[in-house]
């Protein structure tokens, strides 16, 4: 008897589990087979899901994720028995997998909860390996660690399937050519490699965060995934460093505001106008907790400072009660560590609240290459337009808003800027 409703539920459940379990499964399988056999690991994971879809129509197992893991484990043992003399598996296990005496114990051990987490961590490091191009790192991380499909990755990164497919293929070729290992770097290597991982996760988070389209739930998933992977890094002693905690704090504090960034019509709501009661108090509490954890030790990273700035906003009861002096001080510090035009621009915005609009305009005009930035990156003319509007210079405000509108592809941003042109005094 066909049960369409049940069937549909099973597909939904499988989709949900796929997102949550496939990363784990591929990580463990890759630990067994070796990073050079990543595709084999993906095949085995897919087979386990295919089996689930077939068998679950007759009734769900009591523990679906456990069932999937067990199925993947048994399929892995099948593959090892079939290929143990013809394939090189992971260096760490290959020889033990050649003997039937040791195959099952080795596989059992790697499927233990603690080892699963360790394997996931290795996978994050492998996907963010410096031999891979940054764009390829992000695509591979989403595919391999987060279980995103090619189309989902394309949607999340505002790209197309063909480009993503190419990036993934290029990444897989590089893994084999450069013999990328599946391990957690130790000693002096750790710092650099972890820096790249954190940077990639922050990029991933930002891809989701800066998105303006309310419909695209996928972009919110990006934020969640970046946070989930960063949290994984805090669960291992080797990678649980102050910098890791500061990035988790930064992401969590930003995520707390995610729901108040857009209004019912999907338009951007500026920080000044956001309904602070909509900020997620639980996430803010967690974020501040991680910021405290990040304060241990000597290292002060840009994530520390960025998180401290967001925390300062989070703690202010209203926009008017924000401690702008603290925020400008933090931006001064940040600008020393990362003297990028964007940091200077953000500092100028904070400065406008502390010292007034003219001071902010002067600060922006002092940024290196400002003439070029004004005409190429929409945030610069948008902010300048706003500041000129605030001092009643309608001509200059209109001039900059027009440039800004021509530079953004986001419909929401165009709308917001358009409104300002009509009511520049606001």
């Amino acid at each position, binding site marked *: 008897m066909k049960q369409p409703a049940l069937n549909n539920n099973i597909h939904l459940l499988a989709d949900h589990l796929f997102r949550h379990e496939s990363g784990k499964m591929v990580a463990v399988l890759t630990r067994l087979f070796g990073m050079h056999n990543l595709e084999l690991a993906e095949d085995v994971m897919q087979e386990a899901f295919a089996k689930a879809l077939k068998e679950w129509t007759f009734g769900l197992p009591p523990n679906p994720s456990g069932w999937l893991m067990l199925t993947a484990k048994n399929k892995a043992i099948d593959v090892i028995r079939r290929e*143990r*003399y013809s394939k090189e598996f992971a260096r760490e296990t290959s*020889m*033990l997998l*050649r*003997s*039937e*005496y*040791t195959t099952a*114990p080795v596989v059992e051990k790697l499927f233990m909860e603690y080892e699963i987490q360790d394997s996931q961590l290795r996978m994050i490091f492998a996907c963010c390996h410096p031999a891979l191009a940054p764009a390829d790192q992000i695509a591979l991380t989403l595919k391999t660690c987060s279980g995103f499909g090619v189309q989902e990755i394309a949607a999340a990164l505002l790209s197309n399937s063909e480009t993503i497919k190419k990036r993934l293929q290029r990444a897989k070729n590089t893994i084999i050519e450069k013999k990328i290992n599946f391990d957690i770097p130790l000693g002096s290597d750790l710092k650099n490699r972890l820096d790249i991982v954190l940077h990639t996760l922050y990029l991933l988070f930002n891809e989701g965060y800066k998105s303006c389209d309310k419909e695209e739930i996928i972009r919110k998933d990006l934020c969640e995934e970046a946070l989930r992977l960063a949290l994984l890094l805090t669960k291992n002693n080797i990678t649980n460093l102050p910098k890791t905690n500061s990035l988790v704090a930064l992401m969590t504090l930003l995520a707390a505001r995610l729901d108040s960034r857009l209004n019912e019509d999907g338009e951007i709501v500026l920080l000044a106008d956001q309904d602070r009661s909509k900020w997620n108090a639980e996430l803010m509490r967690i974020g501040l907790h991680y910021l405290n954890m990040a304060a241990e030790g000597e290292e002060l990273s840009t994530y520390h400072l960025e998180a401290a700035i967001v925390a300062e906003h989070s703690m202010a009861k209203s926009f008017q009660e924000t401690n702008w002096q603290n925020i400008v001080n933090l931006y001064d510090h940040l600008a020393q560590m990362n003297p990028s035009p964007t940091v200077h621009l953000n500092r100028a915005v904070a400065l406008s609240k502390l010292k007034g609009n003219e001071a902010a305009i002067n600060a922006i005009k002092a940024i290196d290459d400002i003439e070029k930035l004004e005409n190429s990156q929409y945030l610069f003319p948008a902010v300048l337009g706003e500041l000129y509007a605030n001092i009643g210079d309608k001509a200059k405000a209109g001039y900059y808003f027009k440039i800004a509108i021509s530079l953004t592809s986001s419909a929401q941003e165009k709308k917001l800027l358009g409104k300002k042109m009509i009511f520049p005094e606001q």
Partner: protein
Amino acid sequence: MKQFLLILRGGRPAASKTEEESKAETAAWNVYMGSLAQNGHMAGGVPLVSGGKSVSASGITNEPVTSSPEGIVGGYLLINAESLDAAAALADACPHKNYNGHVEVREIAPMPAM
């Protein structure tokens, strides 16, 4: 590098071991296998189930060969070693001998090309 077959005979039947003895034996085997693998000696191996049949011109019997005083074959390991002596030294480290077992060390004969 040559290959050698370690034929494992005898050993204590699982039923006669206490849980602790079993655990200790498994641990000893894990250490041994781990060191074989780590040093590049491991090339393969399988355990055998205890029952079997024997086939000869006089017919088929319903049990494996039991005439050897060292006991029936319970499994084999395939190892890489420089020489028969080196292989014997590796076999000597095998925990099997401490559990009433016997290890026969035989070099794999490469068949000449026809």
